């Protein structure tokens, strides 16, 4: 009993500084609540906020701007061509594709999409790309160029090239979604003949990521509230939680399918009347594709470099 009291007092002392303003002696129950609250915030903050952020993508897509009004099909085609051009650059040419940045930038500026939002999303996904590109500098040590005493290996150059292409392609796709909306993209893909298995999957993934996220967040919260001092947060509990989440998802999928069957679903999601493609939509596609082709055929960064070299 004595020991318990002592430890309780210790905790209350360590908490005292944060409670100085109120100058009320904390009861042990209060401390427990405080502790749980803290744990909750640590464990939950990340999951909750990242999901609210997807909702923001949705809000951005419901704005109205010249790029929002372009037919989704042509925006998707333009972006696909953009991606093809961006990844076609040589792996030892990290600067070559940089001028292509003009496309995502234009979408963001005209579509009033905040740069910081796209940049944050790029950062979140970057560990995946980093883990892919990381081995290049280690495996490919053949020197490529010498900058004075420092020699740059081919691996480093191709690493830079992968990162450039990552930033270009992913920011273009994010900008496309932010100025079109994923549901419009899905129906555009379906109209362009993409197999419905993919478009329906994509549509449902987007709809249920929120529900699944909430479910996962509730489970994490329930676990955090009953895990004390880091106990119960280990791998074994985590894996059983994932398994449980999967089972719940399967159950839910069955219920959703049932709800769809009840309303006459026959394997096909019918989208409303297709919109008419206007001249401005075609100009959007033609203009951008011509620009991408030019940027691919002529090495603008090298010209710029040479010009600057001459000037200096």
């Amino acid at each position, binding site marked *: 009993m004595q020991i318990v009291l002592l430890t309780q007092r210790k905790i209350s002392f360590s908490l005292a500084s944060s409670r100085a303003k109120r100058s009320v002696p904390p009861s042990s129950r209060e401390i427990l609540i405080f502790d749980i609250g803290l744990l909750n915030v640590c464990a939950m903050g990340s999951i909750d906020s990242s999901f609210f952020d997807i909702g923001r993508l949705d809000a951005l897509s*419901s704005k109205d701007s010249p790029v929002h009004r372009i037919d989704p099909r042509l925006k998707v085609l333009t972006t696909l061509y953009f991606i093809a051009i961006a990844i076609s650059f040589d792996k030892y040419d990290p600067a070559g594709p940089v001028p292509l940045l003009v496309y995502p930038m234009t979408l963001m500026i005209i579509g009033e999409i905040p740069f910081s939002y796209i940049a944050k999303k790029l950062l979140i996904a970057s560990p995946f790309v980093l883990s892919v590109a990381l081995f290049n500098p280690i495996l490919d040590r053949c020197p490529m160029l010498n900058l004075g005493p420092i020699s740059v290996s081919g691996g480093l150059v191709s690493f830079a090239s992968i990162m450039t292409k990552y930033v270009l392609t992913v920011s273009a796709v994010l900008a496309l979604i932010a100025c079109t909306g994923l549901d419009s993209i899905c129906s555009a893909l379906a109209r362009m003949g993409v197999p419905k298995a993919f478009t329906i999957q994509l549509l449902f993934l*987007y*709809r249920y990521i929120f*529900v699944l996220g909430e479910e996962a967040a509730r489970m994490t919260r329930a676990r955090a509230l009953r895990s004390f001092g880091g106990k119960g947060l280990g791998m074994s509990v985590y894996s059983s939680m994932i398994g449980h989440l999967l089972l719940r998802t399967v159950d839910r999928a069955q219920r959703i399918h*049932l*709800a769809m069957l009840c*309303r006459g679903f026959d394997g096909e999601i*019918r989208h409303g009347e297709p919109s008419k493609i206007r001249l401005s939509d075609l100009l959007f596609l033609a203009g951008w594709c011509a620009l991408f082709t030019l940027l691919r055929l002529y090495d603008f960064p090298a010209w710029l470099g040479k010009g600057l070299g001459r000037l200096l």
Partner: protein
Amino acid sequence: MSHHIVEVKELKFSYPDGTPALNGVNFRITHGESVALVGANGAGKSTLLLHLNGYLTPQAGSVRIGDIPITKSTLKQVRQTVGMVFQDPDDQLFMPRVYDDVAFGPTNLGLPPDEVKQRTMNALALVGAVHLKDRPPYKLSGGEKRAVSIATVLSMSPAILVMDEPTSNLDPKARRQLMSLLAEFDHTKIIATHDMDMVLDLCSRVIILRGGEVVADGAAKDILNNRELLDSSGLEKPFRLQGCPICGNKGD
């Protein structure tokens, strides 16, 4: 209009793992009736509901909707006649926008676009959710989700409405609004629920299920006052028919 009739005869069903769920259920619900399907958890309510729109096929016995027995070839017709509202609106609302969701059924029925639009807007207006039409479902409140779920079914102009726990997870005001909405419908209604007070307000007839069998089927006012019967089925009298904890009135 005979297509408003629901007739269940000697319906038996066990789940693949051998758990028996229904042991010979019989009832006949006629046009315009509002029937509550009550029973303890696991009494077979949900299994029974799944038979009413042909999701499960009877292992023995039969289910008829109007003049049609439910078989593979009549499924489409049956599902148009029987509108099913699920317990969790998140299962019911699967499209990215409210409008698309309400239009999903009529579109699948192959109706012309103008008709689809008209039906969708009518259904939304009926439940008072026109202003929500461009919203994604995850941004709706519980009550709004429930109203839209009902609209998704109404847009198919069903003759029979089947609802699973329509008032669960709603705040008292939203529950009250939903109940007054349901009271306006002249559809044949089958409502599976634990909300006995809603039964008192909305249903003229009550069917009690226990262990996969119908143990009582009769007028709501008789069954809801029969304490022994309700007790033995894991149920309770509606709160308004129970004693008052403040004035001490026993309520019997």
